[in-house]
């Protein structure tokens, strides 16, 4: 099951109360999943700024996973609702600009959904793996242009 | 006002008078109908009870034709056709995959399915005040039991009217000057397509409906569906032969009632082709005016 290769590179932005704890539960339950995801813990999905996602892609991430509390479960009442509204606009913008939608995945994973966390990570890892490295961004990274 | 017209097969056969009366009154009300060119059967009950896809495809063909002919809204007077078309519309809109499959079957593309009106929606759109304006005959002695049947307001949400206590047909009927009665079996089933194969059932069910309407004071039934009409009208003979004390009651299409209000004769409206022969307690004002 396990993928020895460190590719693809996947960054996850998760909230402390639900998804991070859900990942803890996956651990406590000894569920196995692919090791490509690197998680950055934030207090709330409301804290996840779209620039984080852009930066992750710029730095060469092949996929970005965003996850937090289900609607209604937010530890801070409404952070995830605000986040959701931003994401609606943001993911449509990225899609329009030609960033493959399948490289950015949003999910709700609660503190009790260790299994779902594993499923989400595995499915997303496989999806990104199938897509291959995010060449477009890698190429754009290397060039420096001066316009006349 | 121009609206696409989907008559449905019955309008050409057993329900010729429905079609005839509609065309007559729409002349008076200045509404143009454009028949969908080369429309075909919606599949009716027989299609959906045997093959879901067939039923969808047959309805979809007509919707696609209407769209292709530039129609934004279509009117299906037969409640059963209306229900088939409207249900198919909902299904095609909500299930993309199904839509693609049906598109390949019918070899037509479906993009913007027209708005579909049943006869009540249609007259709401035409404006019931138009009927009141052009009213010539006094129908106040008519006590109408509006019979919606199964398919006019069901399922829930297909229509703006309530699927349990509808009153939209009453609104139109009141505009003709007739009275309406409150009764219990507005939505009860008459047995529908079992008419020929299981006449026994249809006789029982229709009798229940007709009895209840009369018990609540009705002297005329108003229907919006050729199937209901044929069951309630034609089957009264069977009821009468089974229950000798049964009293018959005239069954009119909503369009025929409106026609009467607008001063058209029974013959002009095709009412003379009904099985139940009857006289209605109505007066024609026009004649009075002429004699006065």
């Amino acid at each position: 099951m396990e993928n020895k290769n460190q590719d693809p590179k996947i960054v996850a932005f998760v909230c402390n109360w639900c998804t991070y704890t859900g990942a803890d539960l996956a651990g406590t339950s000894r569920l196995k999943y692919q090791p490509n995801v690197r998680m950055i813990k934030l207090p709330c999905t409301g804290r996840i700024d779209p620039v984080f996602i852009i930066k992750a892609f710029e730095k060469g991430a092949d996929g970005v996973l965003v996850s937090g509390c289900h609607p209604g479960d937010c530890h801070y009442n409404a952070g995830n609702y605000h986040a959701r509204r931003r994401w609606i606009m943001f993911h449509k913008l990225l899609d329009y600009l030609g960033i493959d939608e399948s490289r950015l995945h949003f999910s709700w994973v609660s503190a009790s959904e260790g299994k779902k966390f594993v499923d989400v990570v595995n499915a997303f890892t496989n999806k990104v793996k199938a897509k291959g490295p995010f060449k477009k961004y890698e190429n754009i990274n290397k060039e420096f242009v001066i316009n006349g | 006002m121009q609206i696409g017209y989907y008559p449905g097969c019955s309008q050409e056969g057993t329900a010729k008078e429905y079609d005839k009366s509609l065309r007559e009154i729409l002349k008076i009300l200045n509404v143009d109908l454009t028949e969908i060119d080369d429309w075909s059967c919606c599949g009716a009950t027989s299609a959906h009870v045997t093959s879901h896809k067939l039923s969808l495809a047959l309805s979809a063909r007509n919707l696609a034709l209407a769209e292709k002919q530039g129609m934004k809204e279509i009117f299906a007077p037969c409640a059963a056709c209306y229900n088939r078309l409207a249900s198919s519309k909902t299904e095609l809109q909500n299930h993309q995959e199904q839509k693609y499959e049906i598109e390949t079957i019918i070899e037509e593309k479906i993009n913007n399915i027209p708005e579909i009106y049943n006869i009540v929606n249609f007259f709401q759109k035409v404006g019931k005040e138009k009927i009141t304006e052009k009213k010539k005959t006094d129908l106040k002695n008519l006590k109408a039991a509006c019979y919606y049947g199964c398919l006019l307001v069901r399922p829930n949400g297909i229509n703006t009217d309530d699927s349990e206590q509808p009153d939209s047909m009453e609104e139109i009927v009141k505009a003709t000057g007739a009275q309406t009665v409150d009764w219990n079996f507005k939505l009860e089933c008459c047995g529908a397509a079992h008419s020929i194969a299981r006449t026994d059932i249809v006789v029982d069910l229709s009798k229940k409906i007709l009895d209840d309407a009369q018990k609540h004071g009705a002297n005329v039934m108003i229907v919006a569906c050729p199937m209901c009409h044929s069951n309630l009208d034609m089957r009264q003979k069977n009821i009468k032969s089974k229950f000798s004390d049964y009293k018959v009651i005239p069954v009119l299409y909503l369009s025929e009632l409106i026609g009467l209000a607008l001063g058209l004769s029974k013959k002009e409206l095709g009412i003379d082709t009904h099985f139940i022969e009857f006289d209605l307690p109505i007066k024609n004002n026009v004649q009075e005016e002429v004699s006065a």
Partner: protein
Amino acid sequence: MKIGVFICHCGENIGRTVDCARVSKAAGFFPNVVHSVDYKYMCSDPGQNIIKQAIKDLQLDGVVVGSCSPHMHEKTFRKAVADAGVNPFLCEIANLREHVSWVHDDMDVATDKAIDLVRFAVEKVKRNAPLKTIQVPVTKRTLVIGGGISGIQAALDVANAGYEVVLVEKEPSIGGHMSQLSETFPTLDCSQCILTPRMVEVYQHPKIKLLTYSEVEKVEGFIGNFKVTIRKKARKVDDTKCTGCGDCMQKCPIKKKALSEFDENLTTRSAIYVPFPQAVPNIPVIDTEVCTYFKNGKCSMCKKVCGRDAIFFEQEDQMLTEEIGAIIVATGYKLYTIDKKPKNSEIKGYGEYGYGKYKDVIDGLQFERIASASGPTSGEFKRPSDGKEPKKIVFIQCVGSRDESKGFSYCSKICCMYTAKHAMLYKHKVHDGEAYVFYMDIRSGGKMYDEFVRRAIEEDGVKYIRGRVSRIYEENGKYIVKGEDTLAGVPVEIDADMVVLATAMIAQPEASKLAQTIGIPYDKYGYFVEVHPKLRPVESSSGGIFLAGACHSPRDIPDSVAMASAAAAKAMVLFGSDMLEREPTIALVNENLCAGCFYCKKVCAYNAIEVKQIFDRQGNFVKEVAYVNSGLCQGCGTCNATCPSKSIELIGYTDEQIYAEIAALM
């Protein structure tokens, strides 16, 4: 910065799949890391001592521990670091157990990931700032919202422990739905007989400030330090003068205009009224909607007859503010109404049951009033339409409950019991009467509950039919109820004289508004949400706000009372100390950069953003900027993400820290 890295083996839990020595060695090469070790149990005393010793020996000013989840031992390690003289917030945890060793099998892969995680933590700690926990005092006063049985119980418990309570009830009297009930299951003791003494106790309690006919308007502040604004609605009666003699009500010429809320619209009441004779306080209210004086200024009969000159037409709503430490929300429920199809509501209503078209198709609370000795029929069974004694009653359960089409998908929990009680009460009084109950499942979990239902069936002869009713219609003065007995598989038709619908318990229509006012979450039905369904069932996720009774979910009297006492206990736990400690994770505004668009204010769920005006040295107004009230901010960071110019930052999770983590990933 000098950083020490400490890798824990957690016995074999981490060590089995992560090569801890390799991790520690790799970490030693990270910039700023001056010390790096691994050890069997970092959380043990010797383990903690290793950290403390290293801090002292090497003058470390940053610590990264690679161990179990921060949710497990972050506090432990921060304390150890603090003990050694370093600010505890300069300690970060890399989660090598839950997120690495327990979820991966391959040692190389796991070790590589562990090294990555330690690197992020090192990058983050470099940018951490020394912080101080926030200390706040506690106001030892409780606000109870809602004066039903839950609110009464909670208020009495807290007050009897010696703490002050403010009890707010929106109706003119406390008592709630329980005061309307006839008897209670499963004991069949009289509801009012057990409730009214408690109502009086509340009224007379020296520690309870009772505010009826009042509503919570605004809640500011935070746990231990709420400032609550309460609207005391104008009764138009001076409560300091009124003696509750009732002369005004008797003389009020308007007797039939208003339907009695207490009698569930089965009777009428005067324009000046107390909801019911045992009302607490026994002070009337003028219903300005129907009172002739307020319509055209003509009548003032009540004013004339009042011997105490207590009628006060000009009285206006009053705003009171209260300093509060804990809030107990006990706003109760409403009954799904079948009166008519509710306009602009998602509730579709039951057209097939007649939408309240039929007078003798009533709901459970109406039945309670009919059955009650103090009710409109003095407890005799008479049907509303013609006052005749019903000889056949059909009870229908799950009307609006477990019905996602026309109601709600949840079970209202109490209907099985009260329907059995209703049928029983009826059979006890009308011996030759027939009672039928249509049910889907009988849910009678509870002490002596199932026995009670069985008694109704076995001893009192109530006929239970398993199936939902499809339709009710009137025929010859009878109500034809069409059902199906799904056990026998036969259709059932009953010609009943009366039908009682056990309609769903639903959240108060204004619950979501109240939730937003006080800042607690609510579910899609409008019920308030607890912070943890198992272990913290009476706490809301907002600190210091507790839940009691049916405002949380459908529940019966014993459950509500138990929950109220639990909420009271939680409030008293809070009052056990004089000061509270809070994490310093709060937002901070860069006033130079802030352009004052206040998007931060819009997204703040805690009203923690205030408007601050900036003046130059000459005192000229320059601009408006956002200002964070550190007492209110809970540290979610939504403001930070929303701010287009990043002029507001969340301490502990700054842009700089997160940037460093992202950069370290690749």
